[in-house]
């Protein structure tokens, strides 16, 4: 049998999220010699969550550098190199580790452009793994994007799909500001984690940007707006499909960027549905979910036909033991219950 005898489907190039991220980084490194990568285990290991696989082999040790476990020093180094015109991509292995280097992040990386009256630019990408669900305990399972989004001077992007992971990475590298790029371990498509069918999807081969500051309506619906991000987008889409069979149509917004936040997309969806559920794997209080409620009420509280609801981590450290961890994570069960309550 030959190819011409069968009707072959056109090749659709699919990638997992981690491979899409790496492809974005590699294409920018090809294009711009000032782009380099540094962090813990980003070289021979290829990133603990495969965010830099193959880059050392391709670009060599002068552009892909393992660092000592000295986050203050190497994140500060990235800031300094950025102020001199380079475009560093610096990995903080787990976002939970930010505490040992936060001064370099929020007092230096994020404030230099402002303090210099706009005279100094800090074009760097700080990428970091977030999220739980695999019993890694209270110091290795947090999301913490609300913390970074709260502090002025850094853009914060949080992709959920392979194509967005690549496009937001390229946009982040090309941006003239510090961009915190947060990837959930559960969306990466890693063979050693629970299989996630949504972590494998078509990704264009050429370099492209997904604009920072633009949310995506990833499912249309008239009954409830679910505003969410990262792995919770996958859960929310699953729930939306399930509830559709019951006649409840959810509109799912993948925020994609927290800073700057795409308020218009959220508000126009809420204006349509009149009901807002925020699903957020970060801690509940003083964070993203409260911010979205504030945006709606300060715009027009009459937009809401039902009280605002949120499904987030209820202000407890992420527990190790599975029944406890899954009691506090934004699971599909919790999301579905919240949607039913909103329309009930």
């Amino acid at each position: 049998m030959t190819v011409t005898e069968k009707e072959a489907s056109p090749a659709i190039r699919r990638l997992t999220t981690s491979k899409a991220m790496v492809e974005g980084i590699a294409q920018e490194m090809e294009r711009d010699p000032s782009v380099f990568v540094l962090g813990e285990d980003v070289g021979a290991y290829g990133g603990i969550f495969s965010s830099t696989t193959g880059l050392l082999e391709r670009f060599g040790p002068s552009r892909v550098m393992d660092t000592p476990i000295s986050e203050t020093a190497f994140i500060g180094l990235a800031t300094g190199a950025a102020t001199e015109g380079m475009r560093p991509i610096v990995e903080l292995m787990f976002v939970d580790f930010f505490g040992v280097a936060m001064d370099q992040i929020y007092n230096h990386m994020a404030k230099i452009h402002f303090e210099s009256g706009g005279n100094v630019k800090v074009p760097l990408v700080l990428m970091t793994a977030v999220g739980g669900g695999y019993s890694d305990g209270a110091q290795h399972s947090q999301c913490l994007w609300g913390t970074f989004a709260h502090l002025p001077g850094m853009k914060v992007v949080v992709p959920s799909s392979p194509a967005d992971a690549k496009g937001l990475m390229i946009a982040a590298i090309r941006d003239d500001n510090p961009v915190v790029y947060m990837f959930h371990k559960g969306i990466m498509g890693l063979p050693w984690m629970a299989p996630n069918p949504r972590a494998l999807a078509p990704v264009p081969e050429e370099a492209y940007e997904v604009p920072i500051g633009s949310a995506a309506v990833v499912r249309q619906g008239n009954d409830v707006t679910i505003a969410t991000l990262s792995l919770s987008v996958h859960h929310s889409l699953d729930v939306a499909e399930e509830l559709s069979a019951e006649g409840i149509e959810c509109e799912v917004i993948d925020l994609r960027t927290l800073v700057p936040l795409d308020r218009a997309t959220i508000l126009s969806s809420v204006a349509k549905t009149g009901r807002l559920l925020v699903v957020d794997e970060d801690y509940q209080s003083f964070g993203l979910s409260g911010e979205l409620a504030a945006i709606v009420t300060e715009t027009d509280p009459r937009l809401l036909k039902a009280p605002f609801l949120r499904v987030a981590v209820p202000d407890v450290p992420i527990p190790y033991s599975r029944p406890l961890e899954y009691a506090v994570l934004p699971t599909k069960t919790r999301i579905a219950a919240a949607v039913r309550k909103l329309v009930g």
Partner: protein
Amino acid sequence: MDQKIKIELYRTMVLIRSFEEAILRDYHADKKPAWDIGAGLIPGEMHLSAGQEPVAAGICANLSSGDGITATHRPHHLAIAHGVSLKALAAEIFGRETGLGKGRGGHMHLFDPASHFSCSGIIAEGYPPALGQAFAFKWKKTPNVIVAVTGEGAANQGAFHESLNLAALWKLPVVFVVEDNDWAISVPRQASTAIASNAERAAAYGIPGERIEDNNVEAIWRSAKTAIDRARSGEGPSLLEIHTVRLWGHFEGDAQAYRDDLDAARAHDPLPAYEAQLIGEGFLDAAQAEAIKEESAAEVEAALSFAKASPLPDAADALRYVFA
């Protein structure tokens, strides 16, 4: 060194290895063939200490009731050598209500106030709390010491240097230990550290520093004794760097493709080496060694059985223990 101490060191090392091998077995047993880190009776990251038994045995044999330890993300060997309940340790690893932290903490977050034992999953961050425990011992006028343990990769963290300086300045009863197992996950020490011995860093803070080579449990015991005695007598902290070996991956799931020293590491397994030494010296015979291994295995299996028979926490209790 008298026979009793030698046998105790050996017995501790055997117990640790027995425990780690049992955890290794149960950790992987229900993760095949789809190796999912979050699946099974023991989910999550698992950092096992095989090869590093001499550090724990040699140090802890010099500790007394009331002395404490702060350990790392790889804590089991130190917990066991320090006398933390094997059952409560195992139950925590299995995420059970009977565990050290009632299943809340997990294997990187073990707290045993009775033995002043704790650990942290963040590199070098076990050093600063050790200062405070030492400070409290001084304030209470108890003759106790705290041993703060971290890895060679951690010696490049700010917390490491800040802690050495403050402890030296205030003459706190702390012994700082660096476990040098050559690897910070995939990064070899020569690629992370500008000097060959972290013990040299002690000079920067005016305290004694010593590097102990060859993972030799008796050399570790002797150096630890000197440093612990010094701290206990009010003369202040010391820094010991112990060259040990990481026989297994950084965590279970680490394929270690970056590592070219695996055969050499296995050849430096400290357990058969110490057993052969003791047999050669006439302090131990093969039958006694076998008996110690059997006793250890029985104790470990009893602990694991206890853990597996213990209840998982109730999801309704997920919000407990955030505040006292």
